């Protein structure tokens, strides 16, 4: 099944590379739209910004479709472009430069466990990531979800490795706090409705 999907994707990419028609581009765009939005949405502030970066990334892909090597998987390439464009978008449009540390970000030390985290939907979980400061959000996404090392993150963002680790730790703490808060609010709503 997976191989069939990959084969279909490869066929679609091949058509796009050869024909370079709007019909092919539209198919390719819609096929990878959700994947692309999931990547960008984590890095950016809202869905609108995510869509803008997704479209910029596809524009780059369509421009360079001639040189695409069909023997290589498409998704990693697309992911890389999406991540890079998301980070650049943050730098361009955010007053917050990706600093080593973000002092404005409060640190929550409440370690209370709560298994009610899973009550949140996937979209709501991604929305929690968006609530992080740009610095924490970027480091968390790069390390936890996209699999970069601290060394790579430090070079990509121009920060030290220690800062990358520190930002990751604080991002996790903030997410825990937000998850607890969301769960408590959900519980209160349930009690009120019950």
């Amino acid at each position, binding site marked *: 099944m997976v191989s069939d999907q990959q084969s279909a994707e490869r066929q679609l990419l091949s058509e796009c590379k050869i024909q370079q028609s709007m019909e092919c581009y539209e198919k390719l765009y819609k096929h990878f739209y*959700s994947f692309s939005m999931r990547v960008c949405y984590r890095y950016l502030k809202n869905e609108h910004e995510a869509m803008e970066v997704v479209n910029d990334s596809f524009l780059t892909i369509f421009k360079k479709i001639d040189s695409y090597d069909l023997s290589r998987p498409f998704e990693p390439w697309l992911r890389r472009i999406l991540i890079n*464009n998301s980070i650049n978008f943050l730098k361009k449009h955010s007053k917050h430069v990706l600093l080593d540390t973000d002092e404005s970000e409060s640190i929550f030390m409440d370690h209370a466990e709560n298994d009610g985290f899973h009550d949140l939907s996937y979209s709501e979980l991604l929305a929690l990531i968006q609530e992080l400061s740009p610095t924490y959000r970027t480091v968390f996404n790069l390390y*936890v979800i996209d699999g970069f090392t601290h060394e790579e993150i430090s070079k990509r963002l121009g920060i030290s490795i220690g800062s990358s680790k520190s930002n990751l730790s604080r991002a*996790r703490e903030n997410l825990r706090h937000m998850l607890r808060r969301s769960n408590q609010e959900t519980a209160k709503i349930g009690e009120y409705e019950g």
Partner: protein
Amino acid sequence: MKDKDLDKLFQEASKKASFGDAAAGWNDMKTKLKGAGIAPAPRKSWFNLNSILLILLLFMTGAATVWYFVHDNSVVDSQQLASKKISSSDKHNIHGQNVSSNVGHNPDSKVQQSASESEKFNVDQLTEAVESNAPLSEGDMNKKSQLSSEQPSRLDSSSEFNAESDEQLALIVQIAGHDGQNRSNRSDSVELVATGADLADSEQNSSLSQGKESEIEDENSKSNPVTATNNFSKEDSSDFMLDKMSLIPHDNQIVENRLKQVDKAILVTGDPEDNVVNNQNSGNLKNQTVNIPNDNSQSPKGFEERDADDEFNRSKYTYYAGPSLLLPINVTFSHLPILPNPKLAKVNLPDPSKPVDQKENYFLRSRWSIGLEFSPDLSTVGLRGVEDPGYTVGLHAEYHLSSKLSLSGGVSYSKKIYFADDDIESYPGSNPNWTLDRVNANCDVIDIPVNLSYYLDGYDASGFVFSGGLSTYFMLTEDYDIIYNDPWPEGSQFFRNDNQHFLGILNLSVGYRKRLSPILSLQAEPFIKIPIQGIGAGDLDLYTSGLRFILKYNRSSFGQN
């Protein structure tokens, strides 16, 4: 919750979250594709207003530059004038070419003469008047005297006038004070006054496009009355005056060179007594010799009377054809019926051995020049190749240390588009584990140059300019697309105000500066900017080369002294 569990939670969310509104995204995507020229429809974007305006601007700039630099304004193309034919239906209205002159009797005086650009000349009336030996007005004689005895004239009222046989002439006129004290080697500031018909003899159907340093007004010509016998209008009879004339420095070499460019020189005399016209043409007049009456009683305003009216009595001055004022003109005489043999006044040549005082000219103008510059240019790393062209626009300021040496500076905004491939193994922000293929750069730069310029012929003349100096770059923005070979994906980097390079670029240029007027000049110079230090985030050897145009303004006091 442990870190591992937390990470797993969000990793799962990032894989399974759904964003289903792909149609809305595609609508925006189509707009981007059209804007980028990828979509089929907008490929007709050749009709892009901005592109057309840019092309027009470049074309006009280039055309103007080529015209000014290639065209020798001092000599009119005789072939061009000779090929001009006047149809028979229009033969009664022969439009004279505008002539510019700049003459005066005294450097301390300033009057202005302005001849009409297009003067009508009733040939039939003039011919009739001559054949009947009727009194002629000064205007008539002025017109006739344009034709020297050496110049064949032709009049054929039944056919069109053809000027192909005419020769190119040059009128070299200088008026100097008889005591010689008025001679000035500051030729650009000399103001002389024409005294009437003598200097006006040759201006019809001639042109001059040399510099217009000053203008004089010929009051004499305006005061001439109009005779009723020849039915010439006042305008016809009085405005055959030199309008503007270029003034050439008293430089023997220059004069000799200029003389080589002309076929003949008309020497204009101030002697009004000899009014005999030798017509060597066999046209309608059949080689007849015409005596132009010199009787004041017959001529309502003869020479003597005119001299009396002249503010500048020509008896007080002598005229000569010499190198001081060089008026090259191209005269087509075919339409003129009668050739009065012009007598030229005595000529007092200035001392040609006396060199031009450059300093005197130099101090007539301000030491400061300001200007605007524009340069299309190309940037390349290591001189390996170029991407799209960039451009530079800016302000230019220049301080003249001497007549030939100046110190210039300014501030300009520059768009630099370039790429790097073979020279780079890593780039800031690139993945060190991947192989770099290419970096495409698009940078906005503030360039602050400090240059020393040497004007080969001095700032007061058109000529070549050699410049060299250093530039400081302030990198406003740096946008890089990083392309990898293995794996294939592409990254992107963006920097803002991250790099400055103080005096890190060597400027070299050789250009040509054309004086458009005493205060304006246009300079075109190919240039190259050579990096002394690494430029941008990648510390690359970024070369920039192009063609710079500088429109300079220099406040001048020419004509004020």
